[in-house]
């Protein structure tokens, strides 16, 4: 295909024209005749018994139509919101799941937990009515702090403790023995701060019910509408799948927070049939803060053993992960399978053991957020490696290089259950050192000092497992579904191409990238390819977009479908050219036999107008494929951060950031750069600015942008980004995924730079000005 639009071309994102000219269609932009408005009743307490809910006065409000409570949804037989990943404790027992009704029935367990839905003719009436619902609560003592939750009395009635699971991975005895024999052991206590996702578009739902057909339609902000439908059908049992259509129109960012099936869209869908009218609900920003799934929130102790030469001999990690009040859809897997398995990093550490205590607290549920477990793993590994280098007087880059898995070692099996297929970690480190002018750092540090600023440099050589996931492995590990992806390519009679994918784009640019892939593979013009996604009524099935999986899994499914198109087209073309199929080649959009040539468009037309056509072949040229990956993909790279800390104020300025990433083959380098930039900004946000804080009573004290600090353009430098390439060995595109790398690698690099500047390892994220000021003064 043409160099301008094919694989590797920096094609401008075709979706951006509608986004930046206000022509996108987001859920809240949609309105349907007879629409009503929903407002959720939310708990003002972190933990309380619900004694009574009196809606009589609320229903007097003009325009108020209905008030539903947990009693109503329970009486209607609505199922609990499920957790989709069963984690087993190390004793073999299943994790302890607290029942998670869509609306709280007898007890609320976090501030913002929905316990009722008010429906009215207008949003104003719904709000007014909601204020008049009299709910009688009996406050109970909440459990808030991550580190203390396991010992505290259980928050859920009927549960023995706040421990959902005590999970482990790796060989504990061998790890302990290696630590005991180590020449040096570095010990580090780390906190991974709670984050709140903050997609630019808040969650929303518009549900309709057609009594004539008995069909529900839910339009909502989802990263995976098919999974949403599956959960609402199979678990919540609102309607069977053939009577439920879920559409995710344009979605303004997700970062993971829109993977999960939440109470709000569930209850709104159910209630649409009860009210007999469509219901729209759009979250206010303050609701997003309270009730979107939060992220991270780990407390960890780690120990790294080194031999005399500096080789890592063992890594032992003890983590308490705050899961919030309930297990969200993927919540159980994030601090286990997506975390413990990544603790080998880029290194040949022979013994690793990790133990994770997943705990319940009276806080919003915690689930996957850009990186999901892998930023937490990278933070542990890269912080402790940096600390070990400082303690043993080694250059941090050289200590990493000494321990890295080498290009000749692949495929490399880690002690924590993964087999890395390929990589060249030294190459990305070398390039990053060069781009960061590592040799000039001392001079830059001296120049900063002359201006009253402490300068530090920090590294992070991260790895991630993406392209989720080989289905059999995932199901073996407790996943409730396979993690393949589906794709369909339909060549229309006149040769234009409609592509259907189970992946979902909520900012990633699939409409461009996937069109590049198909146009390149089939040799058809880029502008002739349309990508359809996000609608269970149009796309057969899909598992959606998260874990940097879209291109590696969804894109690979499209390659499989394209191969089928070419195979069938070859038979049609062979018949038309009176050649043997084996003698027909497909090149640049045409079937060629000797000096005969038929374009794909001509063959497509023949397939729909089958006059001169193989008698044993069905008409039409449309093919579906499911692609199940053989292995995860392993993007990896080297990030180097430089910071200046103002001695007088404690302000940390990120002054330089170099990211050299290996994403395998790259389809659209401009989109990849954009993904890296965004990820790095989010990582800088975690390291320096963002912090979801609950007070001792379980009230969210960072519930608005007045207190929750999002990164702004002037908080980050002009990033220097580059890539190295080792193609993935097991998918047809050789791609690995790039969506999360920035957020995975950068927090450790930035905090390593801050600790370097301050000369202490004891720095908590976010590295706020006051914290730095106190460290500088030994306060």
């Amino acid at each position, binding site marked *: 295909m043409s160099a301008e639009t094919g694989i590797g071309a920096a094609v401008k994102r075709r979706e951006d024209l509608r986004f930046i000219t206000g022509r996108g269609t987001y859920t809240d932009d949609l309105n349907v005749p007879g629409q009503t408005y929903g407002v959720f009743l939310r708990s003002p307490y972190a933990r309380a018994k619900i004694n009574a809910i009196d809606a009589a006065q609320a229903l007097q409000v003009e325009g108020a139509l209905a008030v539903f409570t947990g009693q109503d949804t329970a009486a209607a037989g609505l199922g609990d919101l499920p957790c989709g990943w069963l984690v087993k404790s190390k004793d073999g027992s299943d994790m302890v799941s607290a029942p998670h009704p869509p609306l709280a029935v007898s007890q609320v367990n976090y501030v913002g937990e929905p316990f009722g839905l008010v429906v009215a003719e207008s949003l104003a009436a719904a709000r007014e009515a909601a*204020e008049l619902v009299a709910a009688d609560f009996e406050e109970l003592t909440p459990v808030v702090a991550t580190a203390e939750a396991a010992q505290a009395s259980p928050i859920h009635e009927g549960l023995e403790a706040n421990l959902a699971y005590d999970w482990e991975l790796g060989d504990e005895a061998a790890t302990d023995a290696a630590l005991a024999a180590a020449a040096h052991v570095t010990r580090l206590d780390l906190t991974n701060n709670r984050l709140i996702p903050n997609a630019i578009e808040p969650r929303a739902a518009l549900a309709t019910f057609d009594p004539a057909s008995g069909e529900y339609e839910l339009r909502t902000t989802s990263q995976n509408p098919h999974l949403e439908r599956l959960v609402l059908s199979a678990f919540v049992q609102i309607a069977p799948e053939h009577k439920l259509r879920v559409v995710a129109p344009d979605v303004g960012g997700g970062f993971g927070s829109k993977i999960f099936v939440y109470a709000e869209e569930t209850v709104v869908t159910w209630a649409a049939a009860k009210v007999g009218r469509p219901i729209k609900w759009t979250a206010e920003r303050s609701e997003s803060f309270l009730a979107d799934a939060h992220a991270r929130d780990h407390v960890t102790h780690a120990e790294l053993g080194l031999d005399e030469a500096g080789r890592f001999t063992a890594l032992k990690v003890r983590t308490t992960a705050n899961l919030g009040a309930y297990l969200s859809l993927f919540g159980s897997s994030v601090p286990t399978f997506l975390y413990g398995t990544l603790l080998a990093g880029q290194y040949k550490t022979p013994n690793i053991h990790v133990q994770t205590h997943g705990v319940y607290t009276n806080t919003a549920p915690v689930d996957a957020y850009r990186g999901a477990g892998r930023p937490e793993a990278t933070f542990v590994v890269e912080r402790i490696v940096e600390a070990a280098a400082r303690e043993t007087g080694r250059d941090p880059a050289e200590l990493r290089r000494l321990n890295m898995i080498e290009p000749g070692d692949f495929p490399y099996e880690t002690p924590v259950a993964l087999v890395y297929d390929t990589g060249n970690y030294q190459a990305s480190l070398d390039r990053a050192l060069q781009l960061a002018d590592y040799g000039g750092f001392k001079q830059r540090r001296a120049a900063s000092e002359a201006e009253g600023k402490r300068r530090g440099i920090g590294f992070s050589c991260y790895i991630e497992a993406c392209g989720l996931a080989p289905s059999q492995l995932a199901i073996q590990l407790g996943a409730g579904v396979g993690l393949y992806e589906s794709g369909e390519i339909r060549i229309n009679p006149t040769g234009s191409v409609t592509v259907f994918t189970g992946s979902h784009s909520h900012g990633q640019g699939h409409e461009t990238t996937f069109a590049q892939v198909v146009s390149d593979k089939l040799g058809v013009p880029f502008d002739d390819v349309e990508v359809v996604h996000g609608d269970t009524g149009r796309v057969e099935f899909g598992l959606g977009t998260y874990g940097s999986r879209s291109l590696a899994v969804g894109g690979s499914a499209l390659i499989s479908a394209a191969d089928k198109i070419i195979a069938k087209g070859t038979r049609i073309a062979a018949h038309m050219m009176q050649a043997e199929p084996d003698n027909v080649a497909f090149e640049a959009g045409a079937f060629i036999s000797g000096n005969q040539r038929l374009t794909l468009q001509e063959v497509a037309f023949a397939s729909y107008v089958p006059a001169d056509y193989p008698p044993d072949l069905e008409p039409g040229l449309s093919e579906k494929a499911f692609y199940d990956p053989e292995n995860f993909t392993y993007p990896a790279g080297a990030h180097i951060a430089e910071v200046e800390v103002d001695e007088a*104020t*404690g302000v940390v300025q990120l002054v330089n950031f170099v990211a050299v990433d290996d994403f395998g083959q790259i389809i659209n380098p401009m989109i990849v750069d954009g993904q890296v930039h965004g990820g790095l900004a989010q990582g800088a946000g975690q390291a320096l600015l963002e912090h979801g804080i609950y007070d001792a009573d379980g009230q969210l*004290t960072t519930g608005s942008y*007045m207190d929750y600090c999002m990164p702004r353009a002037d908080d980050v430098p002009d990033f220097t980004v580059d890539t190295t390439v080792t193609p993935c060995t097991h998918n047809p595109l050789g791609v690995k995924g790039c969506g999360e790398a920035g957020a995975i690698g950068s927090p450790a690099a930035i905090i390593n730079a801050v600790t370097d500047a301050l000369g202490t390892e004891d720095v908590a994220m976010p590295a706020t*000005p006051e914290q730095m000021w106190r460290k500088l003064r030994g306060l």
Partner: protein
Amino acid sequence: MDAFNYHKPSSLAEAVALHRDAEDPAYLSGGHTLLPTMTQRLATPSDLIDLEGLTELTGIAAEGRTLSIGAFTRHAEVAASAEVRSTVPALADLAEGIGDAQVRNRGTIGGSLANSDPSADYPAAALALNAVIRTDRRQIAADDYFRGLFETALEEDEIITRIDFAIPSCAAYEKFPNPASRYATVGVMVADFNGTVRVGVTGAGPCACRAPAFEAALSARVDPAALDDAELPAIDFNSDLHASAEYRAHLVRVMAQRATARLVEAS
């Protein structure tokens, strides 16, 4: 947001009369504090009286040693004003640093001073520049104006018409923004009136205040080092998620020193 009556009076007298007759009125002068509180239903005024149409509240004029700014002047207009830039550039700088472009294009100087948010920028300038707050019924010296948290000398229905700033020989404003909201965690304006220095501090306490010991030290010697040991203003320092009282107090000194350093550079 609840329903409310909207009024756009064309004279000061009409505005005051509307205020007097309404059940729970509020003047609207930009609305960048009022409207967000209304959307959150923290404020539910029955009547909004928009001051935009009042010509008495507009215009910027420098005369002699006084810079007079109409109360309805938007922050962006102050920032872009040639009169302000040529007489008190520090005030234009301050206005340029308020909020974001949307706030600067709607928010007004009078609205800001009437609200007396503890972390607003203008109050530091009003004190440092020895401003006179002119209203529909009297004049109030800035020193007598700020009374406490969101509390001023204004009567319930009183309307600020103009703010007259004394033009200093030199002034500078330094702000330490709250990382999240970008309001002033601490903001300090240092103004030199031919050797007599005034220092206005915002963000530090319940309302803006002066720093008498800083003023004395700088009036003796315009030098950041003169503030090394000078006493901080005797106020209850604010404490929040982003800055404890102790850290805030430290920042008052640092911001004052940085503003002073700019004064030294400029002279």
